[in-house]
C-alpha cells in the first residue's frame, strides 16, 4: 500500500482509507473490528468516520455508535499511533435534529462540542483530521448538480467555522482540518481566509467521486492541483451499483440499495451508466469493482479513496483491487461512456 502526503499537511495517508459509516447498523461490532484489523494489516492507515454515523440517519439510538466501535478497537488493539483518524462535525439538517438538540450551525460552540463528543467516543485525545461534514450554507454539493441561490439565508460564516477549527488545532485536539461535500466557492473561502490570517489551512476535501459522479473534475479538480488540497473520494462504487451486483435489475436481499434505496444511484441514467461500466469491465476481463476503484485511485487529484464494505470478504476483495491497472483502451471506453452519460449521480 502506498502512502502520500495529505494536502500540504504533515499527515501521510494510505492511498485507500477505510470508510466506516455502516458500523453499528449493517455491520455489527465483531465484523467492524475484523474490518479495522484487516484494513490495517493491508497497510491502510486512514480510518474515516463521523459523529453522525452509522447511516441511515437520523437514529438517536445508534448515533455515535460507529465512533464507539472504533474507539473500542483502538483501545483493544493499541494501534492509535499507527492510524490517521479522521472524523466530522455535522451541520444543520433535518436528519441531525437529534444531535445536540439540533444546535448544529457550525458556530464555535457546536464545533467544539462535537469534537469533544467524538474524542470521548473514540477514546483518544486528538483526531488527525477534523472535517466539516457539509457546509452551513445551502449550496449544491450534495445530490444537486446546479446551484440555486437563497438570498434570505443567513448561515454561520465560513470565517467563524474556520476560527473554531483553528482553535482546536492550536489546542492539539485536531492535527489537520478538512472539508467535505464542499463546492468551489466554499473551498476558496477556506483557502483565502487561511492565507490572510493565522488560521489553519484545509488539507483535504472529502466529496463523493466515482464513475457515476465526476462533477469534482468540472469545478474542483483545478483547486486540488493548484492549491494542494487533496480529494478524499467517497462512494467510489456508487453504493454498490458499480460492482455489478445489481446488474440486470437484480436486488440482492442483504445489499444496501435493496435495504435502503437511494435516489442518487437508482435513477434511470445511473442504472444505464452502471450497466455500461459493468459491461465494459467484463469485456476487458477486469473485475467491475476493481475498475471502479482503480479509476478513482489513478486520478491525479485523488489523495485517498475510501473503501466501505458490509462484510470482511468484500473489504478484502476491494483492498486487493485498490490499484487495478486500467489500459489506455479501457480508459478510452470509460471516457466514451462518460461523454454519453455524464454525472448521472451528482
Amino acid at each position, binding site marked *: 500500500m502506498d502512502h502520500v502526503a495529505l494536502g500540504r499537511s504533515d499527515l501521510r495517508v494510505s492511498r485507500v482509507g477505510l470508510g466506516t459509516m455502516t458500523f453499528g447498523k449493517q455491520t455489527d461490532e465483531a465484523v467492524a473490528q475484523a474490518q479495522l484489523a484487516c484494513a490495517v494489516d493491508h497497510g491502510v492507515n486512514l480510518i474515516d468516520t463521523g459523529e453522525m454515523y452509522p447511516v441511515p440517519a437520523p437514529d438517536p439510538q445508534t448515533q455515535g455508535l460507529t465512533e464507539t466501535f472504533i474507539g473500542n478497537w483502538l483501545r483493544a488493539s493499541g494501534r492509535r499511533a499507527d492510524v490517521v483518524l479522521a472524523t466530522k462535525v455535522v451541520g444543520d439538517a433535518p436528519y441531525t435534529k437529534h444531535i445536540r438538540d439540533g444546535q448544529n450551525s457550525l458556530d464555535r460552540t457546536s464545533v467544539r462540542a462535537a469534537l469533544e463528543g467524538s474524542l470521548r467516543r473514540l477514546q483518544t485525545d486528538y483526531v488527525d483530521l477534523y472535517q466539516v461534514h457539509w457546509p452551513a450554507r445551502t449550496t*449544491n454539493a450534495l445530490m444537486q448538480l446546479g*446551484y440555486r441561490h437563497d438570498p434570505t439565508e443567513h448561515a454561520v460564516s465560513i470565517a467563524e467555522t474556520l476560527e473554531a477549527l483553528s482553535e482546536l488545532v492550536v489546542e492539539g485536539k485536531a492535527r489537520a482540518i478538512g472539508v467535505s461535500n464542499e463546492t468551489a*466557492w466554499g473551498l476558496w473561502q477556506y483557502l483565502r481566509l487561511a492565507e490572510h490570517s493565522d488560521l489553519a489551512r484545509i488539507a483535504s476535501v472529502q466529496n463523493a467521486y466515482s464513475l457515476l459522479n465526476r462533477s469534482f*473534475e468540472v*469545478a474542483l*479538480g*483545478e483547486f486540488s492541483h493548484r492549491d494542494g488540497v487533496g480529494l478524499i473520494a467517497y462512494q467510489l462504487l456508487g453504493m454498490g451499483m458499480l460492482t455489478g451486483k445489481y446488474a440486470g435489475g437484480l436486488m440482492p436481499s442483504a445489499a444496501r440499495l435493496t435495504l435502503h434505496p437511494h435516489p442518487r444511484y437508482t435513477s434511470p441514467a445511473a442504472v444505464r451508466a452502471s450497466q455500461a461500466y459493468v459491461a465494459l469491465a467484463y469485456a476487458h476481463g477486469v473485475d467491475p469493482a476493481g475498475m471502479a476503484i482503480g479509476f478513482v485511485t489513478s486520478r491525479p487529484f485523488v489523495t485517498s479513496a475510501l473503501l466501505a464494505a458490509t462484510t470482511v470478504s468484500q473489504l478484502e476483495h476491494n483492498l486487493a483491487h485498490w490499484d487495478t491497472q486500467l489500459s489506455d483502451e479501457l480508459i478510452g471506453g470509460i471516457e466514451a461512456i462518460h*461523454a*454519453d452519460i*455524464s454525472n448521472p449521480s451528482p
Partner: protein
Amino acid sequence: MQYSMLGRTDIKVSRICLGTMMFGELTDESDAHAQLSCAVDQGINFIDTAEMYPVPLRPGTMGLTEEIVGRWLKQSGIPRDQLVISTKVVGPPPREVIGPTSTLAYIREGHTHLDAANIRAGIEGSLKRLGTDYVDLFQPHWPDRPTNSLKKLGYIHETDEQVVQIEETLAVLGELVDEGKVRVVGVSNETPWGVAQYLQASDEANLPRIVSIQNAYNLLCRTFEIGLAEFAHREDCGLLAYSPLAMGGLTGKYLADELPADARLTRYPHPRYTRPAAVRATGDYAALARKHGLTLTELALAFTATRPFATATILGASRMEQLVEDIAACQVDLSPEVLSGIDAIHHDNSNPGP
C-alpha cells in the same frame, strides 16, 4: 426589455446582448448594420465583440467584425454613452480554439500571453477599429493557463512555465481602467479557480473587480451551474451566456435527416453540439417544447434568459429574421411544468455539450 447592473457597478445593461461574431462572414456589413440598429430599436444597449472575430477564424478577416461595428457606431449617430460596448483580447490559443481554419499565429506573431504587451496591443487595435476612445467592458477571451473551460468536463493538470499569473493580467487591465481606455473588466471561458484568483487579486492588490463571466451556457451545456453559479450570486459577477442556442443546434434545424444547406453547423461542423448525447437531448427538449406549444428556440432562449445567475444572454444570428425571433423568444414565459420538464431531461442527460 429588461436591464440589470454589471457586477457591483452602476453600468446598466440590457438582459439581451447582441453578439457579433458572424459579422463579416455569414452576415455581411449591411445586414450587420441592420441587426445593430434593430437591436437598439428594441432596447438593447449591450454589444459584445472581440478582436479575433469574425468566426471562422482566418488571417485575412481578423478585426473585420470590430470595424463593421465601428462604422455603424459612427454612422448611426447614437451617443457613445448610450451603448455598452464589450470586446476581448486573445490569449495563447488553446487547442480547442485553434480550428481547421487557423492557428491564430497571425495575431501579434503568436505572442499572445496575457501580459502587458499583448493586452495593450489588443486594446489599442480594438479602440482603433471600433473608432472609440474607450470600451465599457474588456475581457481576456480565455485563460492564459491550460484548464478545462472550453469543451472539457474534466480537468487535466498540465504545468506550463510560460503562464502569466492572473494578478499580472489584472494589474495591466487595471492600468487601462486608470487610463480611461476601459471602464470595467470581466473574464471569459473561465473556471471557478480562475474567477477566484481574479477576485482575490482585486481584494489584495486593490485592482478592479471583475463584473462578469462570459461562458457558454445553454440547455446542453449547464456546467456553469456546478461551480460558477455560486460565485455569480455571492460575488456579484454574473454570467454573460454565449451560445444560448448551442450554435443553432437548439433551434432543432439539425434534427432533420438532411442538414439545412446554409446553416452554420452544416458549413462549419462543430463536435460540441453534434455528438449522440447532444442530439438525443435536443430531441427530448424539442418534444417537450412541442408538448407545451412552444418552439424549441423559445424553450431554449427563455430558459437561459431567466436564469437568476445570468446578467445577460448573448444573441448572435446570421440573419435578421432570426434575431427578431430570438429577441422575442427570450421574453417568453416558461410555466413551472415546462421548467420541471427541463429539469427531468437535464437529470437524465446532463451537459451533453460541455
